């Protein structure tokens, strides 16, 4: 068995024809009058007419090679009475081609792109849920994060939460006249829910639930035993769903016929909270997305804001950011592998060994940022504070000595275990073509043989300065995802060693740090290679100090899209293993 990492070319995303500029030119020529450049100040990409959308998307995918649809989201331009659906598509080595569709608020309907890019599936549902944009032709257009009885579409500008105080923070009541109140008194339990007009909880029938059940595939058997399928709910309170995820599984005996993840149990309308906040105030909230990787979340967000403003952090801060992001990757992969082993039944030995090392890294995080998990360390234009005295020595001892030895030991402990191999090899296969089409990213995509790593194809921060290999494997099963993570830890250590050797002295902040800032009008999308995959932040500013639109392209949620595909035909016990191999955090799935 070849344990070495395959460094070959593998299945490629099709190379995009020429640059993004040329592509959008070609698109405009192919659809004259239907596709026009977005000429708003600070905006990019093209605006497509709704009736030409599907054709334009097919043209983009098949003729121009934009085979990866990264993000779909809505924006409410309430002042213009418009709703907009924004798409970011990528080719193998190209930047984003941004295209948008605008519709009036009254009857917003846009053709669905699920048939072109299946990765749009959950994202269009989210956009429908949040904005009420109906995607015609979507196979299952239902709310995804809120429940069916929910009143209104919460991301619309005219929607107000039950504890609403003002449009934007800071709220006027806080100073100078105090007026303290307990949040619970103002917003008592039971009244913190808004029902649709005419809604009576007592008489309510949960059609949505039956729709979930009815929507799933069932086999009608012609031959053999006429057994009936059964439907089982795994979760939302199930130890191996890694949080409050519910998976509805249709079983034939022990074999999975179909399944569907049901999301939203941890939904807290992160994006609305973000739009109420000033730009820097959002940073601590991003920690709570994927709470295992708060450092990389913060990094992704501040990079998006910096892109919008057009500033650069100082050199030292860049290095510190990379160091923190790579340490986070190690933390994440340690946990992902440890909990994956819990899922196969190696109860807690591997995960506790992994936690030992994680503790030591979290000590480092606590030293620099003051918190082990909710780091709140990145700042727009820099980082919170410089490394404290003694930090580098501690980190060096870990990165040069302890962690490399640990990764080797972890390999010895796990990789050759026969039980593990028989549970993971050939389980949960996700072919490269499908992985790309379904928007998989991160180790999930690379284990399917697609050498796609944003640090390499579209280097952000200073990743272009480091030597590292993009880890690829080709069997596309659970075992390969495990090995990709193992090897990525080694590559992270490699980057860390280089960064620690090269880090210069100097300031860690550009300009003055402030809790509020004016950000020029425009839009920006920035994505990073977070430990779990592609984490993107889409921001629209109207020139004020609060984002007009703040959207998180959630890796974990979109990586759940191929779950059903991977599980069909396997045993129910494999579902938890496959789910574990995707590596999700519910804080980020539900936001």
């Amino acid at each position, binding site marked *: 068995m070849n344990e070495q990492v395959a460094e070959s070319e593998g299945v490629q995303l099709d190379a995009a024809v020429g640059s993004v500029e040329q592509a959008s030119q070609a698109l405009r020529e192919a659809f004259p009058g239907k596709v026009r450049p977005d000429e708003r100040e600070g905006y990019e990409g093209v605006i497509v007419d709704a009736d030409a959308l599907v054709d334009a998307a097919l043209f983009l995918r098949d003729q121009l090679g934009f085979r990866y649809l990264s993000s779909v989201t809505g924006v409410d331009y309430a002042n213009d009475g418009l709703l907009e659906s924004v798409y970011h598509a990528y080719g193998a080595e190209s930047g984003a081609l941004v295209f948008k569709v605008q519709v009036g608020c009254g009857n917003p309907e846009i053709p669905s792109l699920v048939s072109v890019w299946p990765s749009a599936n959950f994202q269009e549902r989210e956009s429908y849920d949040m904005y009420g944009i109906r995607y015609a032709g979507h196979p299952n257009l239902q709310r995804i994060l809120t429940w069916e009885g929910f009143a209104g579409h919460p991301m619309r500008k005219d929607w107000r939460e039950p504890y609403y105080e003002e449009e934007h923070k800071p709220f006027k009541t806080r100073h100078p006249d*105090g007026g303290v109140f307990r949040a619970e008194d103002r917003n008592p339990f039971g009244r913190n829910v808004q029902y649709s007009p005419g809604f009576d909880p007592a008489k309510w029938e949960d059609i949505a639930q039956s729709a979930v059940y009815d929507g799933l595939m069932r086999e009608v058997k012609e031959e053999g035993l006429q057994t009936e399928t059964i439907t089982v709910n795994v979760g939302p309170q199930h130890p191996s769903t890694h949080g409050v995820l519910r998976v509805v599984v249709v079983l034939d005996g022990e074999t999975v016929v179909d399944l569907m993840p049901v999301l939203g149990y941890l939904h807290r309308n992160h994006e609305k909270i973000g739009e109420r906040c000033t730009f820097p105030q959002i940073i601590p909230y991003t920690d709570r997305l994927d709470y295992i990787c708060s450092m990389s979340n913060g990094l992704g967000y501040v990079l998006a804001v910096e892109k919008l403003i057009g500033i650069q952090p100082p050199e030292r801060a860049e290095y510190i950011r990379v160091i923190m992001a790579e340490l986070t990757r190690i933390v994440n992969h340690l946990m992902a592998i440890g909990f994956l082993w819990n899922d196969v039944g190696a109860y807690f030995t591997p995960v506790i060994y992994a936690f030992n090392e994680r503790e030591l890294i979290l000590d480092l995080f606590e030293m620099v940022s003051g918190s082990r998990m909710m780091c709140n360390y990145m700042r727009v234009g820099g980082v919170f504070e410089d490394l404290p005295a003694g930090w580098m020595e*501690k980190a060096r001892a870990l990165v040069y000595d302890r962690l490399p030895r640990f990764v080797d030991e972890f390999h010895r402990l796990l990789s050759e275990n026969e039980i593990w191999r028989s549970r993971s090899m050939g389980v949960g296969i996700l072919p490269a073509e499908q992985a790309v089409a379904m928007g998989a990213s991160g180790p999930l995509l690379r284990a399917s043989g697609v050498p796609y790593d944003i640090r390499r194809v579209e280097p952000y921060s200073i990743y272009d300065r480091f030597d590292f290999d993009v880890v690829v494997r080709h069997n596309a099963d659970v075992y390969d995802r495990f090995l990709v993570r193992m090897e990525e830890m080694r590559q992270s250590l490699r980057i860390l060693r280089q960064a620690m050797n090269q880090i210069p002295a100097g300031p860690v902040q550009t300009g003055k740090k402030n*809790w509020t800032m004016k950000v020029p009008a425009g839009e920006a999308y920035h994505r990073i290679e977070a430990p779990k995959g592609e984490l993107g932040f889409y921001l629209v500013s109207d020139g004020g100090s609060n984002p007009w639109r703040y959207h998180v392209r959630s890796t974990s949620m979109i990586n759940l899209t191929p779950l059903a595909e991977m599980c069909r035909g396997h045993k129910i016990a494999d579902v938890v293993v496959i789910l574990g191999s995707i590596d999700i955090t519910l804080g980020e799935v539900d936001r």
Partner: protein
Amino acid sequence: MYGLGILKGLSVTLKHFVNTYVDDIKWGFAKRYTPEALLVRQSAEARGVFTVQYPEEVLLPQERFRFVPFLVYEGTDEDRQYRCTACGICAKACPPQCIWIVRAKDPETGKPLRRPAEFYVDIDICMNCGSCAEYCPFDAIQMDHDFELADHDRETAHIHDLQRLGKPVEYYAKIRPTYYAAEQEAKAAKAARAAKAKAARRKDK
């Protein structure tokens, strides 16, 4: 041979198992939780058991560790001179908006004074982000190290008022020695500069 991989793995487990005893003997069972021992046991040299028996054994927080804020006062407990000037920056910067400040007013003229009459932090809402301490221009509000805030009555105890929030400057100096030293140094430098400027002015006259 089938099973070799499992045996290989078990050898790792065995090593860890033995290590815990070696480590125990090295420290002498009772001394594993002394501050000196913890310094090693929380470093890359750590071997053996990682867990501690909280609350009997408590790991020391790092200097920058942050938990719900407190207000620094100078002077004694009876005569508290809060550093806070009631400027309101922390209340504005606080992401979940859980700080409420009532600025003191001169009882005769009604003019606002540079100190708080009331100051509240709702610690149920506080997300321990540290923004208040970060942006306070007077180092008046600081993040605490005391995380043991469990309570029987959340109805009344979880909104900290001025009395509850106040902690003496000595406490601040104790939990954040480097920050306090830097602050004192900056103050001394400023005083020296002022004195020099004064002397220069006197000479000019």
